[in-house]
């Protein structure tokens, strides 16, 4: 039997008449790094807040380590490190005081100075008042706070937001190390390379519903590309009606194509109309996902 760290059953949250999430069924296995993707307002933060009992579900249930997130919320949160997406800190406090206070309010970690090691690793000056920090330094405070208790589950909402590339790498290393040490990581991000780099599986949420979950390697293997071809002589409207190819956009001189298969056929057709420029566009993991699942018709993949 699979050992799930996070498990939700038909989890729904409504704010009055407004939908937060609807019938989310999610399973995150012990020891995996799970990427949670979706556009703004899709329900990622709502899901995370329900897991932490900050928001109460309208229907359904959420369990962490087999315990009900609501009834056993204290025991659950005792083993969770959380980095909120919109981090708000105590401006007048020094980071050092904040970590000492935060440590004192948690249980379980026997190392009261572990936060110092984390802060040093992130090159964070903990002697300054937090109102003096840049956005990146504030984010570092949030990251240290999430990791400092060596939690069994890390819930990280956009952990690298506002950080420079070198620190982003350090944070990714910290995620991998925590995972190696046995922690499960629930991770939301918009940045494809970091999701690819650390996540074992990803789930995508759209309009409050979990569209699908899939292993990252399976998704990346889809080889989705997006090409904008500019022509000397525009091809006909049905010129790219080729299996595995979707025409996304067309203007007087160019067409934008999403290609999953038959790249050779695309190029052969293009050459017949004299290609004068080729541009590749970045395809996000979410777009690969949506292309793979026919724009969210997820069905049996969930």
């Amino acid at each position, binding site marked *: 039997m699979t050992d799930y760290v996070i498990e939700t059953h038909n989890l729904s949250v*409504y704010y009055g008449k407004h939908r937060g999430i609807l*019938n989310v069924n999610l399973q995150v296995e012990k020891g995996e790094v799970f990427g949670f993707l979706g556009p703004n307002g899709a329900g990622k933060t709502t899901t995370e*807040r329900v897991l932490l009992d900050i928001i109460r579900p309208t229907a359904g249930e959420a369990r962490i380590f087999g315990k009900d997130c609501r009834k056993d919320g204290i025991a659950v949160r005792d083993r969770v490190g*959380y980095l909120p997406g*919109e981090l*708000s800190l105590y401006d007048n406090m020094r980071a050092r005081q904040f970590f000492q206070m*935060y440590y004192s309010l948690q249980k379980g970690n026997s190392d009261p100075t572990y936060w110092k090691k984390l802060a040093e690793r992130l090159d964070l000056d903990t002697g300054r008042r937090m109102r003096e920090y840049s956005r990146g330094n504030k984010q570092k405070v949030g990251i240290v*706070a999430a990791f400092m208790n060596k939690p069994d589950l890390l819930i990280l909402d956009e952990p690298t937001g506002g950080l420079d590339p070198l620190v982003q790498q350090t944070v990714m290393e910290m995620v991998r190390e925590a995972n190696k040490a046995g922690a499960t990581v629930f991770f939301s991000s918009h940045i494809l390379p970091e999701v690819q780099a650390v996540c074992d599986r990803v789930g995508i949420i759209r309009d409050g519903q979990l569209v699908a979950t899939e292993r990252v390697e399976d998704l990346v293997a889809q080889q989705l590309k997006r090409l904008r071809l500019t022509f000397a002589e525009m091809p006909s409207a049905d010129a790219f009606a080729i299996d595995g190819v979707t025409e996304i956009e067309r203007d007087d001189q160019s067409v934008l194509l999403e290609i999953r298969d038959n790249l050779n056929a695309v190029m052969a057709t293009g050459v017949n109309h004299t290609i004068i420029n080729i541009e590749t566009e970045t395809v996000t993991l979410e777009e690969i996902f949506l292309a793979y699942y026919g724009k969210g018709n997820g069905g049996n993949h969930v």
Partner: protein
Amino acid sequence: MFNLLLRELRFRRNAIIGWGIGLCFLPIIYVGIYPEFADQMAGFEDLMDLAIYQAMGISMGGFEEYVASTVTNLVPVIVAIYAVINGTGTLAGEEDNGRLELIAALPIPRWQIVAVKAIALGIALFLILAIVAAGGALTMSAILDQVETTVSAWDLFLSILTAWPLVMAFGMISLFLGAFSASRRAAATIATAVVLISYIGSNLTGMITSLESIQGLFPFYYYDATASGLIDGQDPVNTAVLLAVSLFAFLLAIFFFQRRNLTVGAWPWQRGKLPADAKA
């Protein structure tokens, strides 16, 4: 819980010092100038018959009335404003600015968060009053040989300090409104209105016989800010009523804070129902 309480008190340290020292100038100045002012007091007595002064609970019949009108009548109103600012800011304010999310994600029961904030607010109010009371009492000791009065510096100290149940009641009402409401602004507006209506209402209803029956609705009624309160102390029954109001508001704060969806600006009734067509 103790660590959380220490943190809350540390946050209030500057406010306690600022409000305490700032406000203690009120009794220092008013009590301190009395010896020079006493001769002119007789001229004010007719003026004090005006309804506006009576509505504000002001009387200048003698030293005790003067101290009651200028100190024990005003200090609780001003400290009640701090109680409103802090009581609504501590839950609704932290929720508004997003800081509550970090605390709510810790392994701390919600009732403890409310309890710690209530205790910290209670201690802060007590300390502010104690500083003001000490300032008043010391000033009174300094001028006591220059005035004719039956009250001692200790009486004034106690009279100011025994406003604590009153300001605590406003603090807990504010805390409840902050726990109930989705926004600090709404909570602070209502709480301020409660303080002002209570102050004016208590004095006005005392002046109009037909309205005396509703005087008990206003918390200020239960704190005797007149000279008799200064001389004889507070009525224990009235003090008990204020403490009961505080406890009731505190319990309501816990009840609503336990039920609320935090961080999303939702009112308690906005829990939402699953539409019939959304059921799995």
